[in-house]
């Protein structure tokens, strides 16, 4: 008889990290709200105290209880595509500052779409995607700028 495999248990360190960050945020809120008027500070201080209590409780729980490693692994799985997308969006925002909304959006659409595909690209498919990008972005941009009179 084979012994049943017990799932590997790990400590919930992401949860603990957030608990610590929340506690620090709460302390900051407490310090800032000391300068507020009475009524402007009531709620923020109440929430900050609640956060401290909750963060402490969460820290204790993550120290005591273990969770299945699969839960944490799947939670923390973020591969290079995710990092790539974050970088693309960051570039998109920078480009808006320097090149304007429209060009930046075309770039963003193109790059984000390129990242989204898990199978390799052929040149033809890439070309179609570039065309789709320009058309889609133009359509949306026109709708917003002229249909909704948004100032760009």
């Amino acid at each position, binding site marked *: 008889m084979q012994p049943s495999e017990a799932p590997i248990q790990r400590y919930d360190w992401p*949860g603990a990290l*957030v608990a610590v960050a*929340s506690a620090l945020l709460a302390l900051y809120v407490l310090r800032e709200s000391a300068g507020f008027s009475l009524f402007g500070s*009531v709620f923020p201080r109440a929430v900050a105290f609640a956060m401290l209590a909750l963060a402490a409780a969460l820290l204790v729980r993550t120290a005591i209880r273990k969770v299945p490693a699969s839960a944490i692994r799947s939670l923390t799985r973020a591969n290079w595509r995710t990092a790539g997308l974050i970088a693309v969006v960051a570039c998109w925002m920078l480009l808006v500052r320097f090149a304007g909304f429209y060009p930046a959006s075309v770039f963003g659409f193109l790059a*984000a779409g390129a990242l989204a595909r898990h199978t390799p690209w052929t040149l033809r498919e890439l070309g179609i995607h570039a065309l789709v990008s320009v058309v889609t972005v133009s359509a949306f941009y026109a709708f917003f700028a002229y249909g909704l009179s948004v100032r760009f």
Partner: protein
Amino acid sequence: MLDFVLSALTPLNLFLAIVSVVAGVVIGAIPGLTATMAIAVLTPFTFTMAPEAALITLAGIYMGAIYGGCFAAILVNTPGTPSSIATTFDGFPMAKRGQGQLAVNIATLASVFGGVFSVIVLLLLSPPLARVALAFGPPEYFWLAVLGLALVASLSEGQLLKGLLGACLGLLVAFVGSAVIGGDMRFTFDQPALVGGVNVVVALIGLFCIPVVLDLITRRDHHLHVPEEPASAREELGAAVGILASQKVNLVRSASIGTLVGALPAAGGAIGSLLAYSEARRNARNPEDYGKGEPGGIVASEAANNGTVGGGFIPTLVLGIPGTPPDAIILGALMVHGVRIGPNLFAEHGDIVYTFIFGLLIATILMLPVGLLVGRYAFRLIANIQKTALIPGILLMTILGTYAIHASFADVLMMLSLGFVAWVLTKAGFAIAPIVLGVVLGPIAEQGFVQSWLIGNAAGNIPAVFFGRPISIGIIVLIVLGLLWPVYLSFKKRKPNTSRSVSNAAL
């Protein structure tokens, strides 16, 4: 009365009703575009129309947009408008399971029911309901917000600590900006852009959309499960009707909650649907299924949010006090048309008002075929679209939509930053819904609390203000029931086990 129905059915008014509803649905479906924005943009075009035509157009857009929000909520887990937040709780899980078409159909039917219900109430019960709405004061608003926040506890089964912590984080976001009470500049880091606070829609888009997109890009397969053999349109519709028939009580209760909350000035559509969802869950036979793809959740959320549209017109038309932000714009449009708003509106301009109400009724009924048609194509579109277009498409819509709110680039940066933080939090096991509840309900809870305190302080009796008013007591009872019910249920479930183990041990 009959001649008002007839004047609502003129070809021009009918045409406007259809066009405005369709436009509203499309606008509501795009994350970042809200009903308020659509109405604001289109109001000037209505100045050349007759007053009742203008009203029908604007109200049609409003009703359509509130309904349209369900598409993005169900198919992409992003509320198209704040009123559709609760639709994501069950709509998206259903879509992931392959029941997306069914979910959209249910949302359509529920929305039309809620809308028609509220317009009929508007027609028949406006004056008494307006008085009831006035009886809600700061304490009632505070307790309503608490009732909504208590939903956090029920949504966070098993992860109560993280849920509550998330709600606190959401509340903090709501505190940024110039405080209504006290006037302090809070947490603005000396940035003029933050003086107005964090716009709810901006926070909503960021908190919901960005984690979805960042998650989508890691998957190979499509996020929506499309069934191998999709059912025919008639079968899907039949199934949806069947579900609604089994949810009659939920349907009527949610539509009522939506109508009433819409009639409360300073409440709004989001709170209506959240409260209806909370109550539906509490009264259901299977509360544990809520949040995992229970159709009743969609019924509650969508019936209530369209209910707020008709409900919002009650104080607007009876008292000249707008029930929801789009109503304020519509009132302004009425003033430009030379219509004297205020308590004499029904008396002085009864013809305009009644024609408008019937026109709105017709537009809402028209939402049914429009919705079913659009729903079918929307579902097919999102289900079949390539990821290479879907992911950048969502990003583009959210960025443009956020920018369009106040033509502010700072808003876009805020949206992305909040979204990034939310994504990090989901990696640590936190859910988005509690954070959003904090953001939406925070201002109402805080203002209600401090205003009540000031009123109670002036009267020299603070506890009486919070605990001594009949409506407040009713809401507090609901809160206590809502918090205790799951405890009682789990207690009941354990009892048979203990008696069984005792009898086993005895053997």
